[in-house]
C-alpha cells in the first residue's frame, strides 16, 4: 500500500512502479481512505495547564531556558496582543476562539538530554516512521535534512554535522536561542514585528519552537532543509516560529510539511515564518500543508492562521514561496515578499484545495519598495464540496519602486455547485514607471475533456485527477521533485468521491 509521504526518493520509485499498473485499482484502494495521519501517539507529554497570562509566558520562557531579552520580547508581544482585537475581515466563518481554553505548551517528556537520535524515545521515532519521516536511518537514501517538531518542541534534527561543515546552522529555534543568541536577536521580529497582527503578536508571546536556518556568506546549502510539524496533544495549540537568514550570495531551499491527529475540537495553529535574504541571496520555501481538515461535516480540524513573510533586503535577492494547501479546517495565510533591495524578486506559487466544509482565504502580498523589483504570482484554487476558497492578494508599488513589474494569474476551478471560489486582488500603484498585470478566471472542470478521457478508457476519477494535476502543473513544477509527486498524489486523494 502506498504511503503518501514527503521527501523520500524511495517513495518516488515506489510510486513510479505503481503508476505503471492500471491506476483504477490504486485509486479505488485509496477511495474512502480517510485522513491517514489521524492517529494519536500515546506518549507521555509535559504539558502546562490551559490558559494564557503573563505567568504562562514566563513559564514557557523558563522551560526553554531562554535569555532575559527573549522573555522581554515575549512579554512585550503579550501586552501588545492584549491591546489588539481579533480581525474579522477574512472570508471565513467560525465560532469565536477561546484563548483561555488552549494549552500553550506541550512537549514529549524527556528524561535526560539526548545526545543522538538513538536516544530519542522509540515511540516517537515510530510516529515519524508512520508519517513517512524515518529520522534514524535514511541518511544514505536521502539528501534531505529534517527537523521534526512534535507538538511544541523540536525532537530531532538530522544531518547537523554535515551541514556544520559548510557553516550552515540548521537547528530548532530554542537551540539557536541558546547557542546563537546574537543571530536570533538580530533578526527575530525584524520581518514580522510583534505588533504586526493579532496572531503574530500571540505567536511572539507564546511560540514554543520552530526551525532556525542560517546560511553563511557565499554558501550554497548542500542539501534541501526540511521541517516536519506534528500536533499530537488534543488541546494544545501549535505556535511555531521559523527564521531563515540567507547571508549575501548564499542560497537555500527549505521544505515544510505538517499533519495532525483527528480530534472533534478545533485546534489553533498560529505560526510565524520570517525570511531574510541579503544581497544576491536566494531562499526557496516550499510547504505541503496537510493539517487535519475536519470530517466531512466540518467537525474538528485545525485553524491555520499563519503569518509568513520574506524580506528581500539586499540587492538582487530572491524569495520564492511555493505552497500546496490541502489541509486545515480554515486556512488563512498570505506568504508575502517585501522587496526592498533593488532588482529583488518575489515569487508565489500556490495550489489551494478545499473540500467538504474547509475554508481557505489565502494569497500573497508583494510589496515593491526598491527599484526594478519584480514579482510573479501564480495561484490555483480548487474548491469542491461545500468549501470556500478565496484568493486574496495585494500588489503594491511604492512611489520609489521605479520600473517595478508584477504578473499575477489566479485561476479557480469549481467542482460541484455548492463550492465557492472568490478572488480579491488588491492592486495599489503609486508610480507611473511600473507595470502590473493581473488575470483571473473561474470555471468548472471541463466536461468535454472529461468525456474525452473517459472514452479513452480512463475512469472518471482518474480523469479528474489528471486534469487537476494539469491545472496545477505550473505550481508543481516549482516544487522539489519528491514533493511534487507527493503533492499530486495528495490532491487526488483529497478529491476522492467529490466528482460524479
Amino acid at each position, binding site marked *: 500500500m502506498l504511503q503518501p509521504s514527503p521527501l523520500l526518493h524511495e517513495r518516488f520509485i515506489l510510486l513510479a512502479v505503481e503508476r505503471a499498473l492500471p491506476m483504477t485499482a490504486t485509486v479505488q484502494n485509496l477511495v474512502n481512505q480517510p485522513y491517514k495521519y489521524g492517529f494519536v501517539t500515546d506518549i507521555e507529554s509535559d504539558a502546562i495547564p490551559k490558559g494564557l497570562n503573563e505567568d504562562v509566558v514566563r513559564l514557557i520562557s523558563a522551560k526553554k531556558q531562554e535569555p532575559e531579552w527573549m522573555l522581554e520580547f515575549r512579554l512585550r508581544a503579550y501586552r501588545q496582543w492584549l491591546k489588539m482585537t481579533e480581525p474579522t475581515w477574512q472570508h471565513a466563518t467560525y465560532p469565536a476562539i477561546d484563548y483561555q481554553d488552549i494549552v500553550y505548551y506541550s512537549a514529549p517528556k524527556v528524561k535526560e538530554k539526548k545526545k543522538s537520535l538513538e536516544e530519542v524515545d522509540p515511540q516517537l521515532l515510530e510516529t515519524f516512521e508512520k508519517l513517512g519521516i524515518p529520522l534514524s536511518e535514511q541518511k544514505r537514501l536521502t539528501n534531505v535534512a529534517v527537523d521534526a517538531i512534535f507538538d511544541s518542541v523540536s525532537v530531532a534534527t538530522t544531518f547537523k554535522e554535515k551541514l556544520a561543515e559548510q557553516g550552515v546552522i540548521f537547528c530548532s529555534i530554542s537551540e539557536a536561542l541558546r547557542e546563537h543568541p546574537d543571530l536570533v536577536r538580530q533578526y527575530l521580529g525584524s520581518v514580522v514585528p510583534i505588533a504586526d497582527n493579532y496572531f503574530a503578536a500571540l505567536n511572539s508571546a507564546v511560540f514554543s519552537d520552530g526551525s532556525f536556518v542560517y546560511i553563511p556568506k557565499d554558501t550554497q546549502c548542500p542539501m534541501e532543509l526540511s521541517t516536519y510539524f506534528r500536533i499530537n496533544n488534543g488541546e494544545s495549540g501549535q505556535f511555531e516560529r521559523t527564521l531563515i537568514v540567507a547571508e549575501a550570495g548564499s542560497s537555500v531551499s527549505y521544505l515544510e510539511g505538517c499533519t495532525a491527529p483527528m480530534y472533534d475540537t478545533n485546534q489553533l495553529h498560529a505560526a510565524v515564518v520570517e525570511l531574510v535574504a541579503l544581497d544576491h541571496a536566494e531562499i526557496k520555501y516550499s510547504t505541503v500543508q496537510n493539517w487535519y481538515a475536519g470530517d466531512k461535516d466540518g467537525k474538528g480540524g485545525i485553524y491555520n492562521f499563519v503569518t509568513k513573510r520574506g524580506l528581500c533586503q539586499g540587492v538582487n535577492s530572491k524569495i520564492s514561496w511555493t505552497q500546496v494547501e490541502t489541509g486545515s479546517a480554515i486556512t488563512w495565510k498570505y506568504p508575502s515578499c517585501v522587496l526592498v533591495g533593488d532588482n529583488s524578486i518575489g515569487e508565489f506559487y500556490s495550489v489551494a484545495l478545499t473540500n467538504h466544509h474547509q475554508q481557505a482565504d489565502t494569497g500573497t*502580498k508583494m510589496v515593491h519598495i526598491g527599484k526594478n523589483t519584480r514579482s510573479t504570482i501564480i495561484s490555483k484554487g480548487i474548491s469542491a464540496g461545500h468549501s470556500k476558497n478565496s484568493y486574496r492578494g495585494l500588489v503594491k508599488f511604492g512611489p520609489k519602486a521605479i520600473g517595478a513589474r508584477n504578473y499575477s494569474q489566479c485561476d479557480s476551478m469549481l467542482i460541484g455547485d455548492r463550492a*465557492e471560489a472568490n478572488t480579491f486582488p*488588491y492592486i495599489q500603484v503609486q508610480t507611473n514607471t511600473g507595470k502590473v498585470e493581473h488575470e483571473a478566471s473561474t470555471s468548472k472542470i471541463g466536461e468535454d475533456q472529461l468525456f474525452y478521457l473517459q472514452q479513452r478508457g480512463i475512469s472518471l476519477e482518474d480523469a479528474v485527477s489528471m486534469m487537476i494535476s494539469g491545472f496545477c502543473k505550473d505550481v508543481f513544477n516549482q516544487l522539489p521533485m519528491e514533493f511534487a509527486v507527493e503533492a499530486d498524489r495528495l490532491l487526488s486523494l483529497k478529491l476522492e468521491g467529490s466528482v460524479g
Partner: protein
Amino acid sequence: MSIQVSMVPDATETVNAPRVDRAAYLSRLVQLRGELDAAGSGLKDLRDRATALVQERAMPSTRAEEWRFTDLSPLLQESFQPVVPQPITAEAIIPFGLTDAPHRLVFVDGVYAPSLSTLGDLPPEVQLGNLSRVPGGIPHIGQHQGAEETFTALNTACMTDAAVIWVAQGQEWRTPIHLLVVTTTGAATLSHPRCVVIAEAGSQFTLIEEFVSLEGGGAAWVNRVTEIKLGAGATVNHTRVQRQGAHTFHIGKTAVSQARDSRYVATVLNWGAHLARHHLEIYQTGAQTATILNGLTLLQGEQLGDTHSLIAFTQPYGMANQVQKCIVGDRAHAVFNGKIWVPQAAQLTNASQLSRNLLLSPRARVDTKPQLEITADNVKCSHGATVSQLEEDEVFYLQSRGISAEMARQLLTFAFAAEVVDAIPLPTLRDRIRSELSLRLNPA
C-alpha cells in the same frame, strides 16, 4: 531593520483634519431636508423610514472596507446647507444642448425646471418629467436592492422630487432622451437629485444622463441616486457623463434591476468633481440578461475618482462584459472596485471584467480591485487588471514616423480612451467628448 506591513494594507486617513463626529455630522445633514410639496406627498413614509435609517449611521471612514481608498474628510470640513435653487437662464445651458436628443429634461440643483426642458411631441407611452407627471406615485422608487446604503438612504430621506422617465410596454422609442442635471455651484450647498427610469417589458430607448456645473466657485455636494428598472426583454442604452466643476463633491448611485431577457448598456464617463464616487449596481432578477458596462475615468490635478461596481447575478444564463479604464495624471487618485457575484442559482453565467489603468505622472495613484465571488460551478468568469504607463516602444514607433514625442503620447492616450468614448451612442455628444478629451490632453 524593521519593515512594518500590516495585515490589511494601510488606510489613508487625512492626518491633520480635526476629528469630526461622523454620526452627528450625518444626522445633521438629514435634518436639513426640505419639505415635500403636493407632488411628492406619496414619498412621506419612504422618506421617514430612510431618515430613521440614516439617523443610526455615521459618515463612512476609511476604516470601512468599502471606503478604504476614498477619504471623505474633505467633505467633513464643509458645513453644507440645503441648496436654494438659483434661477438660470436658457442661455446658460445652451453649451450643453444636444441636437440629436430633442427630448430634454433639465433639473437645476435637484429641482425640475420645466421652462428649460423641451419635451417635444411625446405619445402617452413615453412619460417624461417629474413626479407630478405620475399622480398615482411611483411604486418602484426606493425599492431597489442596496437602497439601504448610507448615501442612498440619505438621498431617499431628503429628496423632494424626482426625474421620471417611463416608457410603456413594447414601446421602441428611437429618439434619445437627454437628462441634464445642473449644479449652480453655490458655496457649500447640498442637493439630492433623484431619478427613476422605468423601461417596461419589451421597450427600448436611449438615455443620456449628464451632470454639469455652471461657472462659479464653492464646494457643492451632489448626492445623486438613479434607479433604472428594466422589464422583460427591455433594452436601455444609458450614457452617464459626470463633468462637474473642480470643487464639486459628487456621490452617485446608479441602481439597475434587470428582468429576464433584458439588455442594459452603460457608458460611464467620470471626469469632473474634486471627489467623485459612483456606485454602479446591477441586479439581475430574471434569466438570460445581458449587461455591458464601459467606464472611463479621467483625472488630473488632485482629483479623486472612485467607481464601485457590482454585477449581481441570481438567475442562469446571464452575460456581463465590463471594461473600466482610468487615465490618471498629476497627483490624482483613481479607485476601482468591481465585484461580480455569481451565487449557486446563476449557472451558465458568462462574465468578464477588465480594469485598465494608465498612469501619466509619478505622483498619480491607482487602487484597483476586481473581485469575483462565485458559488456556481458551471460558469465562465474572468477578470483582468493592468496598471502601466504608455509603452515606450509605441511612442518610439510614432516618433520614427516623424511625430513628436509629445504628440505621440497624446495620440496614444487618446486611443486608450477612445474605446470607451466611441461607445457613446449619440454623435453630437461623442464628438463633443472627443474634442474635450483632446483639449484636456493638450491644454496648449
